[in-house]
């Protein structure tokens, strides 16, 4: 049996697949960030907290209301999305005419509040959330044992990413959105309610984060800090991809998940830093990011 850099190819396939699974979280989260950034021009620092809220809402649905995973998968993004809409309407909208950095600071403050509140109520040790019965167990793929749930995560996030891409690039609503991004004043003049569009876009981006949170709940423990560190990595993903394109965010997300997965095999010590190192390299060559337009 030949070996690739000291690792049998079967094991390597397994690791590549795992990398893709992590990449799906990066992809959904950076996609949400990119959608929000496109229209609002703010970096949503609360994205990680909203991802965490998604997981918590799923947990609450199950434990307080007896609502199962599948319903929560729809319900949690909806609830957190509405929460996002309220935040946009009552807080972020107030900053519309100011420097966009204020939006960053505001959402940073919101992230602190949300995380603090959940920590107060639920502690930091994390809450258990079981994998739904239908997805328990796994498939023996020959080269690895793939838990059904992980397979589902990759599939579901790919579908969500592609649907989002299709909606923005190929539908009428998406066209409005892109128009509002390019020139809000003109779009408004054509009779499109831009502020409403902005609010809904923020809500949608937040809902994406919450969706990722529900997907994550059964794999990682439901923990108030689960989004805090992840979001920094996702920021780096976004910087690498550049904020320009929706597809860019998706591709970079999956791609970096893959790279990180491989690093875990060849040099595990660096797996936490590899994305940041790539970021520096990309910045040196293409300051606008891989898919970004030069500023």
């Amino acid at each position: 049996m030949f070996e690739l850099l000291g690792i049998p190819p079967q094991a390597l396939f397994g690791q590549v697949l795992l990398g893709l699974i992590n990449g799906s979280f990066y992809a959904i989260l950076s996609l949400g960030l990119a959608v929000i950034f496109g229209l609002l021009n703010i970096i949503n620092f609360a994205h990680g907290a909203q991802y965490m809220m998604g997981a918590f809402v799923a947990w609450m649905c199950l434990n307080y209301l007896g609502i199962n995973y599948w319903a929560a998968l729809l319900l949690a993004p909806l609830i957190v999305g509405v929460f996002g809409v309220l935040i946009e309407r009552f807080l972020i909208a107030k900053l519309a005419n100011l420097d966009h950095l204020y939006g960053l600071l505001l959402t940073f403050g919101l992230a602190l509040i949300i995380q603090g509140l959940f920590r107060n109520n639920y502690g930091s040790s994390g809450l258990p959330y079981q994998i739904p019965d239908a997805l328990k167990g796994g498939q023996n793929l020959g080269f690895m044992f793939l838990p059904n749930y992980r397979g589902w995560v990759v599939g579901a996030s790919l579908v969500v990413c592609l649907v989002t891409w299709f909606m923005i690039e190929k539908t009428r609503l998406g066209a409005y959105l892109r128009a509002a991004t390019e020139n809000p004043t003109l779009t408004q003049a054509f009779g499109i309610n831009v502020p409403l569009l902005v609010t809904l876009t923020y809500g949608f981006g937040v809902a994406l984060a919450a969706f990722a949170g529900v997907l994550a709940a059964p794999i990682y423990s439901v923990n108030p800090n689960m989004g805090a560190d992840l979001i920094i990595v996702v920021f780096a993903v976004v910087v690498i991809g550049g904020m320009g394109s929706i597809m860019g965010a998706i591709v970079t997300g999956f791609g970096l998940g893959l790279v990180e997965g491989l690093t875990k095999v060849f040099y595990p010590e660096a797996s936490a830093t590899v994305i940041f190192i790539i970021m520096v390299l990309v910045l040196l060559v293409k300051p606008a990011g891989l898919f970004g337009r030069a500023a």
Partner: protein
Amino acid sequence: MMKLKTILATTALAALMASPALAQQISVKAGVLNDRSGLYADLSGEGSVIAARLAVEDFKAAEKGIKVEIVSADHQNKPDVGSTIARQWYDQDGVDLILDVPTSSVALAVNQITKEKNKIHINSGAASSDLTGKACTPNTIHWTYDTYALAQGTGGAMVKAGGDSWFFLTADYAFGHALERDATEVITKNGGKVLGAVRTPFPGTDFSSFLLQAQASKAKVIGLANAGGDTINSIKQAGEFGIVAGGQKLAGLLVFASDVHALGLQTAQGLVLTEAFYWDTNDQTRAWSERFAKLNNGKKPTMVQAGVYSGLLHYLKAVEAAKSKDTATVMAKMKEMPTDDPLFGKGTVRADGRKMHDMYLFEVKKPSESKGPWDYYKQLAVLPADKAFRPLSESECPLVKK
């Protein structure tokens, strides 16, 4: 300033009535410094304060003319926060001893300050065996457990039970490395071998890749040289990838009853771990734990909380015997007197500050074996104190080195 929950364990009135015989009254202020909001809040936190209060109650301090005040604070698992509070407690607030202090990094900082200010630190929460090794001081007693004992318990016993090949998932920081190193030593000494180890970024959330590597190693035992959230996530994901079902055993090098409680038996079953105390050991521990749980929202005590109780009780006995709270005198008394309490039984405090007692190897029960809430462990083995802790002859502690 940090007088958060200042509890006057004895009122002045009670003290006046109780001790006409004793000429001078000694008043002691004990600070419980631990994690009250973070990862280790469940295993120490408010529970340790409750345990300290129970110690004062059981000692009947008021009748003996010793006035005990307990204060507490949150160190947030950060050495800088912890050392600031410790400094302030000693400098400003007249605290005589600091109890608990989980998280090795904070414990080492408090250990240092305690020596500098010549006060007393009885540590229950931290794992680092350096507290009675390289970093030992005449002012610190390490009460409940340490990395050496955990490695001896889990590593040694697993090898004897046939788990002679290991693969480590090691959290990539000083503490994880120490756990792996101590355990490796024990395993090889007992005739086992370590097939490999992977350093996982700390703190981590996704361990699947590393678990796959562990699975591929075909080792009989996968040792988890990590703590807190890392341990919980790796156990959870090991379940997902069918690792235990596939015949490999998981050995947690630092797992507490509160972690098992958070994981649930479904996920944690079959896990092998070492602890110094389990509430369901004998009638005395059961009775005490019952009292404790009533005050702690029904949660049973962890070994850390039990250690705070036992440590403070011994301190108070020493103060009574010495009729003084002078640091050197009390420390000498504490090391001279044997310890005895309902939770840890009889024991001693060694010259290097190591408290000696038996350790226990447990296996987490299957859900079907559990009779009710908090019925989690079955006992596999008892490690006598002299086997569990690092012998003085191997100690790096300057206090006992010749």
